[in-house]
């Protein structure tokens, strides 16, 4: 079972390495969106510090969503998904592998880059650490919830917009807690509560989203 999990992650990472531009798109989108705001808002430090956490989190959230359309679509189109559904291990294992690979390709670069971008908003040093921590807990939740949306809209015309409509409302709690944690840290208030709630959301999403994704994939292939 673990071997299959490793294999699926390896396969998706290998495919991404062969198509680096797809991965780069997500990262570049994040960097550009987060960098445009300081230009638009102007150089007022207090204002920038106030909007920074929200802007960075919204940009990360949109970047993560941008990559969702690729999650299952190509496997669906070339028939690989049919073969995956006939696997001899529980389907949740394969699904978990695919979501994990998606997170490694979209979430991890965002976590690494976010503290750098936070400099543009003049966030204090402690807040950068909290930003990275909140993204580390929050982006896997985005990948898991997003995968439910991507699986449900698989094979549907205009699935990108539909995925956004389905998934964005569900992203709201993650956004509130994530941006809240960074706000708290930049106001020098303890942000542990926000992070713990994000951790709880992650555990909830990890246990409760795999089954719906599997079921949605079976329906899509039928």
């Amino acid at each position, binding site marked *: 079972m673990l071997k299959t999990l490793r294999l699926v992650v390896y396969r998706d990472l290998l495919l991404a390495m062969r198509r680096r531009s797809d991965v780069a798109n997500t990262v570049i989108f994040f960097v550009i969106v987060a960098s445009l705001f300081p230009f638009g808002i102007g150089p007022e430090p207090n204002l920038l510090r106030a909007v920074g956490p929200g802007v960075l989190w919204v940009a990360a959230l949109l970047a993560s969503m941008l990559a969702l359309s690729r999650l299952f679509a190509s496997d669906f189109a070339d028939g690989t998904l049919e*073969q995956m559904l006939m696997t001899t291990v529980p389907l949740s294992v394969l699904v978990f592998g695919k979501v994990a690979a998606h997170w490694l390709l979209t979430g991890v670069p965002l976590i690494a880059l976010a503290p750098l971008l936070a400099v543009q908003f003049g966030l204090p040093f402690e807040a950068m650490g909290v930003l990275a921590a909140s993204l580390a807990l929050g982006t896997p939740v985005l990948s898991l919830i997003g995968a439910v949306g991507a699986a449900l809209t698989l094979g549907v015309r205009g699935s990108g917009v539909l995925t956004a409509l389905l998934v964005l409302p569900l992203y709201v709690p993650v956004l509130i807690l994530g941006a809240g944690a960074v706000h708290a840290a930049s106001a020098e208030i303890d942000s542990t509560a926000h992070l713990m709630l994000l951790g709880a959301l992650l555990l909830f999403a990890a246990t409760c989203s795999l089954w719906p994704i599997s079921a949605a994939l079976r329906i899509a292939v039928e």
Partner: protein
Amino acid sequence: MLEGTGLECVRGDRTLFRGLEFTLQPGELLRVAGENGSGKTSLLRIVCGLSVPAAGDVHWNGESIRRLREDYWKDVVYVGHANALKDDLTAGENLRIGCAIAGLAPATDHTLDALDAFGVRACADLPARVLSQGQRRRVSLAKLAVSRSRPLWILDEPFTALDKAAVAHLQGLIGHHVAAGGAVMLTTHQEVSIAAAATRQLDLSA
């Protein structure tokens, strides 16, 4: 033993077939015939457990495949209409990863032998993107050469896009599998000469 009872398939508001019955014993070949759109692929997908029939059920060794699930898929190899190849992976990687996802774990030299048997060993390190339609089909079918241990093969139009030599090789492979006690269910429009002790026909147009 594979057994379909009272199978019914509805696509949109059209009933493709109703009350379909078939059995397939070890060592037998079942050829599903019928014109385009008569529901051959739909039937194979039902037998694979990928879609659910509107009525009826498929049993494998006396148990419903919907109950068996993973235990059924351990015994099945399915080569579908789509080749299930990733354009960005090489033919060798495609075969190895495809087999591993299906729960087969062939050694690297086995996969190379399988590609060799289908005459595409030279393509092993080429990305699937640059292969011709026939070569892609061969890579996809090479999975069969490493899945002799699986008792049930389900093949959807396996001969399309293949040249004469590849067709002959595939027929030999299928004949060998059936002779060794395996069961094969396939759809094809071509006349095939497979040396099977018992060949059954299932005509969906009738």
